[in-house]
């Protein structure tokens, strides 16, 4: 079996006196779509920031693509879409992409392809600040896709997005996964679970389960991931 794309070994994170993650250990295999599900404040963003290397865990080891998280060699191999739409509002769509492409060493000639992938070709010359919420998050996604990362870390990319666009986004994610990209998508909407190969359920900074959607429902004798989540919360530990 090939080396896992991401491996966490007894990882904890504290902000002052509050604990955002408690002793999380997990392993994510390459080329899968992983759904990181949990209510708001569960520690999803903290976990993702640790994986992309923006946050140093208080305890534990994190290995990403065979390197310690945040390692110099990982820069550009990990595409990160933050929860806030991290684009330059006072630049056009094309200027945003050009800047990040130059930083990543991606040829500008490939940019029309990325714009087409996220369906923003007609907005190329529009200021990012004037885009709709959905368009902004698609631009943010396009930037995360630049440079063909081996790992895509997407923090709530489908929040507040209309159902049609949500399906479009999932098509993009599946297309990327088919090319061998490992994708971690966080969400607090349990419905999204159906699109994922595997799920990580997280609550109060603890990992409740790491399983496929089907086996999770079978194991807890329920029909939906939402019910499985409730069953796991109620279950005696």
């Amino acid at each position, binding site marked *: 079996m090939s080396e896992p794309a991401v491996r966490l070994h007894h990882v904890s994170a504290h902000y002052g006196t509050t604990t955002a993650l408690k002793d999380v250990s997990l392993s994510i295999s390459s080329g899968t779509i992983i759904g990181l599900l949990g209510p708001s404040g569960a520690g999803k963003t903290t976990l993702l*920031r640790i994986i*992309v*290397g*923006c*946050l*140093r865990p208080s305890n534990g080891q994190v290995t990403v693509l065979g390197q310690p998280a*945040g390692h*110099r060699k*990982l*820069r*550009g191999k*990990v595409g*990160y879409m*933050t*929860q*806030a*739409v*991290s*684009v*330059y*509002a*006072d*630049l056009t769509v094309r*200027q945003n992409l050009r*800047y*990040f492409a*130059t*930083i*990543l*060493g991606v040829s500008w000639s490939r940019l029309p392809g990325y714009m087409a992938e996220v369906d923003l070709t007609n907005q190329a010359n529009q*200021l990012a600040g004037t885009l709709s919420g959905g368009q902004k998050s698609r631009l943010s996604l396009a*930037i995360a896709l630049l440079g063909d990362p081996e790992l895509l870390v997407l923090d709530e990319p489908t929040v507040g997005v209309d159902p049609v666009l949500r399906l479009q986004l999932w098509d993009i994610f599946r297309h990327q996964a088919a090319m061998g990209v490992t994708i971690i998508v966080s969400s607090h909407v349990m419905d999204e679970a159906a699109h994922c190969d595997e799920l990580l359920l997280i609550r109060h900074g603890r990992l409740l389960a790491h399983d496929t959607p089907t086996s999770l429902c079978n194991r807890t004798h329920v029909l939906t991931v939402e019910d499985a989540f409730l069953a796991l919360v109620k279950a005696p530990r």
Partner: protein
Amino acid sequence: MSLRRIVATASRVWCQLLHDSRTLGLIFFVPCALLVLMKFVFENQRATFNEIEPLMLGTFPLTIMFLITSITTLRERTTGTLDRLMTMPIAKLDFILGYALAFTLVAAIQAALATWLVIGLLAVPVAGGALPMLIGAILGAFLGTALGLFVSAFARTEFQAVQFLPVVIIPQLMTCGLFVARDRMASWLYYFSDFMPMTYSVDAMKRVRIESSWSSTLTHDFVVVVGVAIGVLVLGAITIRRRD
């Protein structure tokens, strides 16, 4: 360090400014307006005005560039673009130098306008001529840019960032020899001002006003201003945190 990434960052910042014509207008217009205002403040004291106006070129561009740059990297932090960049192959120094390059180019235009205004329109006699005055104004603005970028690494909010003006700039303004000759201050303050870079920026302007030839002291003043600015930029790059 990568020249390509520095230039890309600088041109990106330029593009942002070009889409924000109000900010660009304020950067160019405000120092000029203040310089003209000085003329009317000293309406009946032409000799004092002639003495003070060149010194303003050593302080206004510096202060204004400090204010602007002190919130810029903060904006990148709050919008999440800094987090994103820090996961990409860009050195922290590339990022800071890109900003410094962009704003120093803006400052050069600002300095050219201000120099033309002082020497041309307001007819202030300057023995050294326009060139050393222009260089002094640009270097002062470069210093302000560097100091602003440096403090923006420490501020967590815009509200905190603007508080650095009274901390970093006003003490320098008070002790740089603008209000009172430095040797007339308390001796400990004289030594304090020796360590403050604005002192050299203002001293350079004093020399340009009265010395018709380029002296080695003028070169010394400029070298100090540039040296401090570069040192502060490097410190600024070190202070940005790639990982929280």
